[in-house]
C-alpha cells in the first residue's frame, strides 16, 4: 500500500481497507446490526417500495400519484408519501476538477480522487449503482450509472485519466444537473471556494436528488501564503489579481475568513439537510469517510 501511494493516489486505496470500511458503512447506514451473513446491502432509503417511510413537501417533478391527499388537506400544503427503497439506489458522485483543486502540490486533488473512488467502492459494494461526473464550469467527464466490479473499474479509469484544470474554469455545480436523475443520491466533492460557497447550486440539487452529500476538500495551507510582504495574488480560476502587503495580521484574518466560510456552509447544509463534511489534506480518506458515515448514522 505504501509503495502504491507513491505512484498514484488511487493506489493508496487498499482493497482490504475498503472491505472493512464497507462493513462499517453497512452497519452505520442500516442503523442496526447486520443479521444476514455476507455482504448484501440493507436498504433503508426513501425510494420505490411498499413500506412507508415518511412524508415530504411536494416539489415540482414529484409523481402526482405519491401525493397523500389526506395529509395535504390537513397541512394545507401538498405532501407526498415516501417509501423505503427496497431496491438499490442510484448514486452520482460529482467531483470538482476546477483549477482550484490543483493547488496544494496535488494533495488536494489526490484526496478528492481517493474519496470519490472509496465512496464508489462502498456504494457499489452495497449493490448500488454509481455514476461519476467530473465538472468545472461545465461537465468534463461522465461515467454513467453502473453496478458491479466492471463499473468500479471503469470509474477508476475515468478518475485516473482525469486531472484538475491548471487555470481558469469556475466551479459551476449546476452544470451537472442535466446528468443527474431525479431521486438519486448525489455526492459533491469540492472545495466550495467560491463567492457563494456553491450554496445556490446545492439548494438546487436538493430538489433533484433524494439525498445530497457535500464533502469539502481543502488544502492544509489553503488560507496561508508562503511569505509576507508585498505579493500579487492571482485567483487561479477567475484570473483576477490583487496586490496586497501580506502581514501576520492579514494571515490571521484570512484564516478566520476561511473558517467563517466553512462554518457558514456547514450551517447552510444543516439547514438544507445536506450531509456535510469538511476535511483537509492533513486528513486521510478513511478518517474522512468514517466521519461522513458517522454523520449519516447520527442523522438516521
Amino acid at each position, binding site marked *: 500500500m505504501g509503495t502504491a501511494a507513491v505512484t498514484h493516489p488511487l493506489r493508496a486505496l487498499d482493497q482490504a481497507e475498503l472491505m472493512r470500511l464497507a462493513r462499517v458503512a453497512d452497519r452505520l447506514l442500516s442503523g442496526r446490526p447486520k443479521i444476514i451473513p455476507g455482504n448484501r446491502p440493507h436498504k433503508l432509503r426513501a425510494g420505490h417500495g411498499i413500506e412507508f417511510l415518511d412524508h415530504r413537501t411536494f416539489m415540482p417533478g414529484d409523481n402526482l400519484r405519491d401525493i397523500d391527499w389526506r395529509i395535504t388537506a390537513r397541512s394545507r400544503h401538498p405532501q407526498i408519501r415516501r417509501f423505503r427503497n427496497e431496491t438499490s439506489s442510484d448514486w452520482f458522485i460529482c467531483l470538482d476538477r476546477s483549477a*482550484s483543486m490543483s*493547488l496544494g502540490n496535488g494533495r488536494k486533488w489526490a484526496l478528492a480522487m481517493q474519496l470519490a473512488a472509496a465512496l464508489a467502492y462502498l456504494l457499489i459494494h452495497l449493490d448500488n449503482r454509481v455514476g461519476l461526473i467530473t465538472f468545472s464550469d461545465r461537465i468534463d467527464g461522465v461515467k454513467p450509472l453502473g453496478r458491479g466490479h466492471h463499473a468500479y473499474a471503469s470509474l477508476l479509469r475515468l478518475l485516473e485519466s482525469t486531472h484538475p484544470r491548471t*487555470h481558469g474554469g469556475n466551479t459551476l455545480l449546476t452544470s451537472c444537473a442535466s446528468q443527474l436523475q431525479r431521486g438519486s443520491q448525489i455526492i459533491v466533492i469540492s*472545495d466550495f*471556494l*467560491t*463567492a457563494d460557497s456553491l450554496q445556490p447550486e446545492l439548494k438546487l440539487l436538493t430538489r433533484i436528488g433524494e439525498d445530497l452529500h457535500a464533502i469539502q476538500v481543502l*488544502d492544509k495551507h*489553503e*488560507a496561508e*501564503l*508562503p*511569505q509576507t*510582504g*508585498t*505579493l*500579487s*495574488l*492571482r*485567483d*487561479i*480560476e*477567475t484570473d*483576477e*489579481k*490583487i*496586490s*496586497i*502587503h*501580506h*502581514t501576520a*495580521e*492579514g494571515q490571521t*484574518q*484570512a484564516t478566520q*475568513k*476561511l473558517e467563517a*466560510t466553512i462554518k457558514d456552509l456547514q450551517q447552510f447544509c444543516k439547514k438544507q439537510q445536506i450531509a456535510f463534511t469538511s476535511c483537509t489534506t492533513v486528513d486521510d480518506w478513511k478518517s474522512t469517510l468514517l466521519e461522513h458515515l458517522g454523520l449519516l448514522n447520527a442523522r438516521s
Partner: protein
Amino acid sequence: MPGLESPLWLFALLGIPLVWWIHRFNNRGVELSVSTILLWKNISQPENKGHRLTTADPLWRQRAIIITVLVFALTAPTLDAPSSRRVNVWFDHSLSMHAIEQNQMRIEQGIQKLLSKLESEEITEATIRSLQDPSRTLQLTPQNRATLKRWLSTSPQAISNSLPSPTPSEHETWLVTDGANNKLQDWADKARIAQVIQVGSATENTTITRLSIRPSVAQTSFTGVVSIANQGNKATTRKLQIHIEEKILDEQTLSLQPSETQHHTFTIPYNSANLISARLLEPKDALTNDDHLSLSIKETKIALTGNCGKPMQALLKALPGIRLSTPTSAALTIACANKQPSVAGDTIWFHTEDKTQQINQLPYWGLSAGQLNQLNLQPAQLLVHIAQTPSKGQPLLTADGIPLISFQSTPKHLMEVRLDIHTPQLTDHPIFPTLVTGFMEYALGQKLLDRIHTVQNPPLQSKLQPKLLHTDNRSIGSSYISTTDLTPYIIIAALILLLLDLLRIRETRQ
C-alpha cells in the same frame, strides 16, 4: 562639526518622490496563485482595500534611505574636530635679524617671544623652519628649546634674502621676523600666516655694500673701490678706514644722507699685502655685521726654469698677482728646455733646440685655441725649433704643417710651444706679453690679466626698518581643526543597506 563639500548634490534628493512613484504604481513583487482571492479581499488592513493597493510598497522607504545615503556620499560630508594643536614656525634669521637692540640681538628677542608665546598657548610641539633655508627644520619640544639659538646661528653673510615658496601648511603657521624685508607681507598673505611675532624697532644702519680691487698693469698697483650706503631714514656721519692687514691705509669721515651711497677709491702698492679690509667705525649702529668687509688677494705662484730669456723674466715680474716660486710649490711651471721637463704640476714647455726654421705661411689657430685665436701672429715674427720628437696633444697653432703650439690636458696640463722666444721679432713686439699671459691663462684655466677682486653685502639685507605685518585671522580658527572625510563610511552604510535589500529580495523569490 559636520560639513558638506559639495552641497549642491542635495538637490538630487528631489528625486525621492520618483522612488515612491515606482513602488506605488509599478509591479508589486512576487505573484502567487491561490484557490480564491476572496480570502484576502477586503480584509481590514488599510493598504489592502480594493483590488489595488492604495499605498506604495513599504520597501520604498528603505530604498529611499539608500538613495539618500548615496546622495549624502556624493556631497562629500566632512566632520571637523579639534585636534592637538601643532604649529609651524617660520623663523627669519636674515642679516637684519642680527641687529642688536637694547644689548640683545633681534634673533634672541624673537626666540624669547616665541617660547613665551608657545608656553602661554600651551603648545608643546612646534616645527621651526628657516625662512632663508626651508630645508632646515627643527622639531622644537620643551626639552630642546635651549638649542634653538644655536640652530639659528648661521653666518649672516651666508644668508640669502630670498623667500621660499609660500605653500600653505595644514597646520597653524607662525612667523618670527623683524619685518624688514619688503616682500614679506605678500609672502605672509600667501602662506596664510596665523600669527606674526615681530621684533625690533631700530631703523638706522650704514653698511659697506662693496669692496673691490683691480690690479693695474701700468701703475704696478691695485686700485680699490669701497661703497658705503646709508640704509636708514636719517643723515649720518661715519668714519671709514681702509686696512692692509692690520695697518691703516686710509681713513676718512663720510657724511651720508638717507638712502645715499658713496664710493671711495684708494690705491694699494703692488705685492704690498694679501688682506685688504674696509671698516666703518664710530658711531656704531644696530647692525654691526655689515660694517666690515674684507678681501683676500690670492697670488698665483709661477716657476721659471731654464733659459727663457730676459723678456720672459721681466714679463713675469711685471704681471700683478703673480709671484715667482719654485717648481714644487708653483701652480704653473714655465720651462725652457730641449726636452720635456719632468715637473709634477701644470707646465708650459718652450722648446730651445738649436735648429730653427723660419715660418713662411700665415699661422692659423685651431678650434680649441679659445681666446688665443684673437692674437694675430705674422710669419716674420716666428721662428720654430725643429725637434726630433713629435708634438704631444692637440695642436693649437699650426703653420707650414708644423704644430707650433699644442696642448695636452691629461694627465696634467702640458702646453708645448715650439716658437723661439728669444727672437727679437717676437719679444720686442707688443703682442709678446699678451701671448705669454694667454699661454698661462690657458694652461691654468683662470684669468691673470684683468682680474677684479670683489666682496659685497647685499644692500637690501641691511635694511633694518621694520614694517608692521598683519596676519590671516582665518587661518587661526581652522588651523588646528582636523577634518575627517565621512564619504567612505557613508558608502559602506549604503552597501550594507543594499546587501540587506538584496537578501530580502532573494528570500522573497525563494
